């Protein structure tokens, strides 16, 4: 362990020194967590700054991580398109279908990779049937949030196209739930137990939202020292807040499941019929009584005789 660390430090030193002992490199860290439960934007910003500091610290002063928190998906997309984000800490749903390499994933206080997906409705809504033909809110996170939530929170039991009149995006979970509270929409998809869901009726739940992943958007282009600094910082205890209790290396199961949910048609549309299994094993073999021609010989006693015994 110790030798590995030593090797990492040496490699970091060589890398940093290689450009001719220039000044410390700046690394851009984007933070987009629209479904995390931050109490305010200030808290969200403070989280991002702390995370950047921790990464810088992990780099031993050789790298300077600068944080930028995004509140809207569109803003992030434009930054990414401009190549201005070296490291992205984002909601898992955002990353579904995108390029880049996931370095780590978050876990909550229970060790889960994130909360379940849920459908919350206004208290007067009886059940899902009451929402047929209605407009719903959904946090604008990934490419097809409505499909994800229908497949996750409702297990694909309604059609993505015809059941709701519209699934309207909101900038984050808080905003989506806020629309319900403001009676703008009768229901909204959001993470289960989101603080903003208080007072609303839980209609359905399922799947698991990958609460946060840390991504190298350019994939292999991200240098090893940066990756090391990022992972060392996160796995060393940084990046906690907004419901995130820690980090683990790798993609995590919730991300893969979320990807499937977002990319599949709802169950009611894709379910295949079942067929009656083949019955060859049940087919009885041919049976017929073959008739023999032989006759039994006439019964005879042959040489039968009894041997008398002499009782004592």
């Amino acid at each position, binding site marked *: 362990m110790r030798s590995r660390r030593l090797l990492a430090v040496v490699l970091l030193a060589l890398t940093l020194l290689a450009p001719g002992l220039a000044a410390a490199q700046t690394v851009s860290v984007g933070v987009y967590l629209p479904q995390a439960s931050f109490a305010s934007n200030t808290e969200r910003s403070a989280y991002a700054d702390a995370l950047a500091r921790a990464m810088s610290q992990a780099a031993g002063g050789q790298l300077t991580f600068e944080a930028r928190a995004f509140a809207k998906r569109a803003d992030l997309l434009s930054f990414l398109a401009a190549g201005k984000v070296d490291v992205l800490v984002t909601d898992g749903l955002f990353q579904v279908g995108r390029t880049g390499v996931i370095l780590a994933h978050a876990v909550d206080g229970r060790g889960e990779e994130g909360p379940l997906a849920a459908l919350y409705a206004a208290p007067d809504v009886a059940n899902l049937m009451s929402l047929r033909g209605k407009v719903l809110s959904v946090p604008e996170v990934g490419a097809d949030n409505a499909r994800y939530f229908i497949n996750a929170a409702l297990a694909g039991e309604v059609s993505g196209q015809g059941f709701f009149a519209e699934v309207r995006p909101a900038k984050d979970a808080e905003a989506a739930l806020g629309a319900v509270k403001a009676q703008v929409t009768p229901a909204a998809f959001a993470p289960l137990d989101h603080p903003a869901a208080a007072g609303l009726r839980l209609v359905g739940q399922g799947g698991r939202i990958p609460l946060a992943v840390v991504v190298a958007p350019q994939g292999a282009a991200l240098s090893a020292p940066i990756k090391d600094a990022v992972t060392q910082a996160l796995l060393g205890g940084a990046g906690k807040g907004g419901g995130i209790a820690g980090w683990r290396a790798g993609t995590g199961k919730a991300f893969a499941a979320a990807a499937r949910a977002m990319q599949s048609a709802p169950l009611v549309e894709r379910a295949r*019929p079942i067929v009656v299994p083949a019955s060859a094993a049940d087919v009885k*073999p041919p049976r017929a009584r073959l008739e023999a021609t032989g006759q039994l010989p006439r*019964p*005879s006693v042959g040489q039968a005789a009894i041997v008398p015994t002499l009782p004592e």
Partner: protein
Amino acid sequence: MTPRLAARLLAAAMAVALSLGPALGAQDLDKREKQRLLQVGDDALDSARTLTARGDTKAAKQRVAEAEKAYRRILAGEPGNKQANLGLSRALLIDKRFQEGVDLLEPLHAKAPDDPDYTHQLGLHQFQNGRPQDAAKLLERVADDPKRFDAMWLLATYHFQQSGWFEGLPHIERYVKVRPDDKKALGLLGTYYLKLDRFQEAVVALDAFLVVEPKNLAARINRANALFRSSRLVEAGRAYEELLGEEGDRPRLLYNLASVRIKQGRCDQAVALLDRFLKLQPDYATALYFKADCQLQLGRLAEARQTFELAGTGAANNPWVYYGLSQIAFREGQLDEALTQAERAAGLDDSFEITGWLGTLLRRAGRPNEALAWHDKALHKTPERAPLHVERGRDLWALQRLQESLAAFERAATLDPALTDATLGLVTVKTAQAAAARATGDDAAARRGLQEALDRMPTYEPARVNLALLELAAGQVEAAERAIGPSGREDAPSGPDARAVRAMLHLLAGRHEPAQAEIEAATAAGTQLQGLALTVTGHLAAHKGEWARASEAFDEAAALAPGDAAAQRSAAIAALELGLDRLAAGDAGGARAALERALSAKEGLEARDRTLAQLGSAMAAVLAAPGSEGPLGALRQMAEGRALAGPAWASARELAHACVAWSLLRKGDANGALKALAKVRDGGPTAAAITAAAHEQLGHAAYAAKAWAKAIQHWTQAAQAAPSPAMDHNIAAARLASGQAGEAARTWLRQTSDGGPPEALYNLALIRDREGAYREAWDLFRRYATSGRPDAQRARERAERKERLFGFVAGQGVN
């Protein structure tokens, strides 16, 4: 003067007178005087006897003195006067002056030794004077004379004391004869008879004696003993009981009464009496032995053993104790111990009981040679004892020395015609000899021997059975019927072997029900005629078409008689029929096993049946391992080969092809199956089922390859071969997959109500889901969830989810 003094003086005077007598009378007297004096003396003696009988001894003594005086006066003048000498001798006898009598008579006897009177008198004096042996010699010479009964009596008592029963008996008999009024002598006579084992006469004599002396204890005991010894046990028992009642527990009476009870077989009472006896004489070994023997008879073996051992302690090396212990051990099934004890007994005593018993044990132990030696030894002691000859016959039987055995039994039967064991042995040997004669093919000798056995014992079952079998083998059914006799008659044999023979007779006459009843009874009772019983059982089962049972019976019969061609052939045919039965029932394993047995029989199947068995076996092999290449290839080769060529084999051949098709289907080669079926002209429902299953299989393959049209085509052909809702259902699935949801929905909707496969519910639910008819879909999922089909759990989960999300409750509203 006191009377005593007077008597003394008188005696002294008489003595003086007597001593002076000869001197005074030295002068011979005339004849008349002598006659007178003789008369005086004789009268005085008669008077003295009478007085003695009355108990007046004093007066009697005076008379004796008077007689003596008279005789002495004669003798003083004539010392050789015989009458006077004899008179004086009698007087001295009465006066018990025996030495003087001897002194008087010895000289006279010496001078005339043949004189019976002197001999008699001298004998009497010597007897009384303590020389009975000398006296007896003298008295024996004169005792024949009826007048000399006193000599007879003395001799009778003398010999009685000497236990000279033979010597004394003539004297007492003569005495009783000459003195019939002396009834008391009968007591002595009775005792003599008892001692000489003339028990009946003893009882008569003692009965007569007891009339005059009814309380005489010795006579009563002797009478009871005589009754016992003459086997008049009831009277003896009563007599002993009376004596015990009067005399209390006298040991000898207890012992004797116990002996009576033993003889009467009332061992329980005997043991009680012997217990009372043993309280008085605890160490009396014989009583202990008898008690032990009684306990043995009563089956109280542990007590008997204890008592025998106690008896042995009191009488070491008593062979009868070991004999008893041997019997106990034998009764307990400990043959070795029984032998050890018997050998110990035989080492101490060579009585026939012990040696005979040892011989019997040795035979039981499988040592008939030694047994024979011991029985010979016993017979040496008592050659006329019939039971020992029976034992010897059994030894020889065990040694297979049948002729000698027969002779031994003949001898026993001659000695005791009522001894049934002898007759039984005799007929047993004759029957065995007849069986041996039959085995050598000498049926005439066999028949003769059996007839002789039956002449001696008409009910002897083995002889009747063997005679009936002999007649049956000769084809003489009626004679066989006569030999065995009808069932139910008292004189007809009813054992298992006879019933087996009767079953065969019924079978041959076509009377199957009684044959069945008889053979079941015979088998249950363990008949020796196993082969015959199995043959009958096999034929009866075959008659009912129960080939499994028939085959089993014939197989066993064939195993018992490997050289019997008929038995082998019956076994082969029954195995073939069984195999074909099992094949038709679809029991491949059972069919194959039976057919292989049929094929392996040495004697047996005709060519066509053999081919049939081979075909059946090949088919069974295919059925047992569907799709397996080896059996399939063999059957295919046979179906297409020469063995089944020609119109005569058409149906069998087509069955073989159908079987090939079935196997190919099970192997997954649906196309191969359809090709094989093409060789079956009219395969019936089975061929149709195979065709349908083959197309069904091909349809599934196409469906899996998403070749929807091809799947529809095969499933349609399957439905044509064997219409099936499953095929309609699957066609609908292929249609849905190919975008024809409406048609699929119509099919499934119909099937949900007309008994189609449950999968229709599930698939219709999917369509309803797509249509947004969630409640209807929920309801259909729920119904499918209860179908028990493989996907039921999936449907249940979906129905539950819909309930949670949509709040569906059964019976409420629609979508």
